[in-house]
């Protein structure tokens, strides 16, 4: 990686507490343009929490966020979207009662000149992006509750990539997917990487991370164990970081 450039996103010394529990304890992570950074750790390690600070779902109790070297304030999901940060949540965050187009454009509806919601235009756009992402997708007028897990996932992905994201957060994007759809997500990640987008990939699947990520940041009990170049470590070394919370001997970051 080209580390002389400024990082696309730098989260410095982030702290989040719930009650008395420090869910994220002075953690710093960053991502460069065209880079995929994996966030690893057990359930409750704090990886989803720190990422939700970036996507605006949680408020941080300390630390700062820099985008292209400039400090920014992110108080809610709207702020995050304005900074071109898009998130694919583990829960997908879809309104099950609405169709694919309504979900894709939720909060950013296309309007007619009269200021009305333009459903036909949104469906047309949805058909376009789905044509490239998941050509098998056909149920455009059904509520997303009627879709399969993979189809729902592709709606959530389409929503994140449609609006020219610069920073993409993927929280367990393949957890609910079959092998074919997992491959689709991998291809998409590579394609987005080429386009210069910075990606945080949260996963507890070591193989995903080894295959897709350039660097990996490992968290345990709310603290950062360390950040390593994926090319420099073995599966076992990553595993021991996750399980034992130990930085490999030969690594310096």
């Amino acid at each position, binding site marked *: 990686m080209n580390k002389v450039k400024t990082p696309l996103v730098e989260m410095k010394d982030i702290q989040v507490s719930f009650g008395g529990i420090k869910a994220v304890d002075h953690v710093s992570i960053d991502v460069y343009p065209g880079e995929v950074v994996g966030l690893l750790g057990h359930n409750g390690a704090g990886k989803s929490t720190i990422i939700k600070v970036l996507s605006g779902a949680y408020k941080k109790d300390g630390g700062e966020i820099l985008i292209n070297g400039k400090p920014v304030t992110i108080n809610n999901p709207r702020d995050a979207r304005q900074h071109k940060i898009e998130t694919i949540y583990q829960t997908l965050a879809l309104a099950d009662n609405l169709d694919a187009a309504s979900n894709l454009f939720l909060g950013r509806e296309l309007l007619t000149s009269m200021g009305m919601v333009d459903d*036909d235009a949104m469906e047309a756009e949805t058909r376009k992006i789905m044509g490239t992402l998941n050509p098998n997708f056909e149920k455009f007028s059904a509520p997303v509750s009627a879709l399969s897990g993979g189809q729902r996932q592709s709606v959530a992905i389409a929503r994140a990539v449609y609006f020219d994201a610069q920073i993409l957060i993927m929280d367990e994007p393949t957890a609910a997917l079959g092998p074919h759809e997992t491959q689709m997500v991998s291809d998409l990640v590579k394609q987005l990487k080429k386009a210069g987008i910075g990606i945080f990939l949260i996963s507890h699947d070591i193989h995903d991370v080894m295959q897709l990520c350039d660097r990996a940041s490992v968290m345990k009990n709310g603290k950062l164990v360390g950040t390593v170049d994926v090319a420099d470590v073995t599966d076992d070394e990553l595993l021991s970081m996750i399980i034992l919370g130990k930085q490999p001997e030969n690594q310096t970051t």
Partner: protein
Amino acid sequence: MTNSIRLFFSKLELDNRMLGMIGALIFLWVVFNFATDGRFLTPRNLFNLSVQTASVAVMATGMVFVIVTRHIDLSVGSLLGLLGMLMGTLQAHILPQYLGFEHPLIWVITVVAGLSIGVLIGAVQGWIIGYLTVPAFIVTLGGFLVYRGAAWWVTTGQTVAPLDASFKLLGGGAEGTLGAGFSWIAGLLASILAVVLMVLSRRQKAGHGFSIKPIWAEYTLGAVAVSLIMGFVWIMNSYPLSKGAVKRIFANRDLPIPDFNVYHGIAIPVLIVVMIAVLMTVIAKKTRFGRYVFATGGNPEAAELSGINTRLLTVRVFALMGGLTAIAAVIASARLGSVGNDLGTLDELRVIAAAVIGGTALAGGVGTIYGALLGALIMQSLQSGMAMVGIDAPLQSIVVGIVLVLAVYLDIAYRRRAGA
């Protein structure tokens, strides 16, 4: 045979649930018509039915939004009573002191004041629910007691009467109708509007290359819509005014008393319901606010993560409910011509029942405006039908209660089978 009928209806792309409700309504009407020796399906009774349904129907459209966002409003009946009492006092005791009795501005000021107070009270309830996160059930249960008490307090329990004559037109009755001529014009305009909207929608869909219904299906739907509208106008225009009312009305206008029949036409409150139904449907389907109401009901967390301010949305939904309650209060009090202490009692339950029978799911995210209107009409038909047959009041309550539970059970069973 049954297969071809099924195919016919599927090509029309109608909502099966709505067809079921219309079927239930027709069934009720036919049964009551038999039981009353043909007195139920007369222009006179259908006119009365349309006026009696109006107040609950107006509130039911707002209750759809409230329930879709996973809330409930138990306070609408009491709020209707309080707003009716305030508007009654304003037009009968306060404004005449400054403007004189029957001043043409009295009804305008009264309605605007009622609407403002309704919206304000609704917004305050919504703020407590959205921002202070007190459950809607509790907030509106509190409101239920507070407003009923406050209504009593306005006049220490005295009935307010008489109301302003222009105001009373908003409640229907002999004077409060469009008359035959304007009813035909209104029906014609509505028919043209319906056809134009269908054509525009088809063009737009075709323009995007989406699949469209076969043209005969469009013609069928258009013909059904137009005949329903014109049929309704025709029935309303077949109910003659009583001789006394004709004399009174023509004498007031300094016209000679006619020796031919004069007909009611569409009642003004029904016209109000139609306009509100159209407006609320547009809000639900075609505005961001409506989209966010349904998204929040479907998945509040997803709505929040999509940047929707769900707390403010709650305030707006309850403010809208308050405004609609004010309109319902206008209709209810104007229809009776006076405001008593018990105005709107139990209306909250009728309104919730109408919305729920109309397919609004208490789990949130699902509901339609036309469904709520049909629900209100079914409830009212049941009630006035039983009254006409001569069923005792306690038994009426028992039947209405059982029908409510049965309707929701059938809805659940249908949804399970349809897999939706």
